């Protein structure tokens, strides 16, 4: 999948697959799962869930989609719906784990950002290692927003940021501030070049 394809199409591809699924095409559900699961994975992980809890959470979000498919009025909203559902389920799992006040929205904690698997570290190329080094110095909130927003393309940025709880009016400034911080760190890094 090229960057350009992602940029132009995640919201639309999800909406088209969702419409086809509701019309009875079960293969379309597989296409939807394959396209959107990576985004939901990073939504769950950006909420601080362990790998296992993130897997369960993403799976639950999909089961809820099938359960509530008829209630989603606008198909183009399905990507945001799935992200929001995943985030809420992630909070629920966090609350169960920590027994915090159920009325209080939990503060987002940074995911343990260090890849522990030696094979994973070895697989990271120089660009990835450098970018990761700068990424983990951002605020937890910025990490959360960028982690999810980067999974879509330009048309998806607003929907993804909104699903992560950035109010509509501040999507541009908030995302922009986080992105600007990462961009500045990278451009100031003499060993990093944009390819």
């Amino acid at each position: 999948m090229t960057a350009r394809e992602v940029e132009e199409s995640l919201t639309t591809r999800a909406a088209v697959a969702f419409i086809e699924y509701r019309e009875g095409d079960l293969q379309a559900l597989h296409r939807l799962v394959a396209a959107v699961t990576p985004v939901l994975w990073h939504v769950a992980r950006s909420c601080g869930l362990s790998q296992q809890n993130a897997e369960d959470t993403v799976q639950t979000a999909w089961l809820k989609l099938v359960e509530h498919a008829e209630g989603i009025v606008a198909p183009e909203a399905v990507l945001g719906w799935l992200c929001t559902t995943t985030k809420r389920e992630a909070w629920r799992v966090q609350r169960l784990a920590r027994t915090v006040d159920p009325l209080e929205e939990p503060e987002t904690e940074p995911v343990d950002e260090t890849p522990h698997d030696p094979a994973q570290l070895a697989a990271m190329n120089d660009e990835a290692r450098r970018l990761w080094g700068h990424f983990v110095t951002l605020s937890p909130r910025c990490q959360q927003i960028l982690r999810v927003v980067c999974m879509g393309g330009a048309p998806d940025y607003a929907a993804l940021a909104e699903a992560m709880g950035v109010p509509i009016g501040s999507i541009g400034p908030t995302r922009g501030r986080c992105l600007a911080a990462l961009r500045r760190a990278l451009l100031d890094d003499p060993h990093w070049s944009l390819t």
Partner: protein
Amino acid sequence: MTELPDHMDDIDVAVLDALRRTLALADPVPDHLVGEIEFSLSLAAMNAELALLADDAVGVRAPTAESADSVTFTSSTMTLMVVIGRDDGELRIDAWVSGGGITVELIQGAHRTPAVSDLNGRVSWSPVQPGLARFLISPLTAGGRPVITPAIEL
């Protein structure tokens, strides 16, 4: 080319693209996740009932799957007893379900191997690969619910 929102430029897009590539290496989506989601969704579509391990009210899930020579699963409509043995060094499974002519599928990851029970309710698979496995039992009556077992370690 899609118009970029909020005064973003090509460098911003390149940074986000690079971050996406980095995340694919630093925190990759587990390989099995999409397959497991599709399996759960197909079970939900079939309205399958989850069988329980007899002598254990809680279903066993993958990370804590039991290693056992013989296990029995029960549901509201049927019982499945599974015996794991060896045949010339290869794993072999014999199972007994409550009735003949019932289709039982051995499911290991994406591999599904159906078998039909004989008059004594017996089904068997040989050779079988080691690893996690579960069983899917077709409905005993028209309009009935299929039954899926928790995973066990073979």
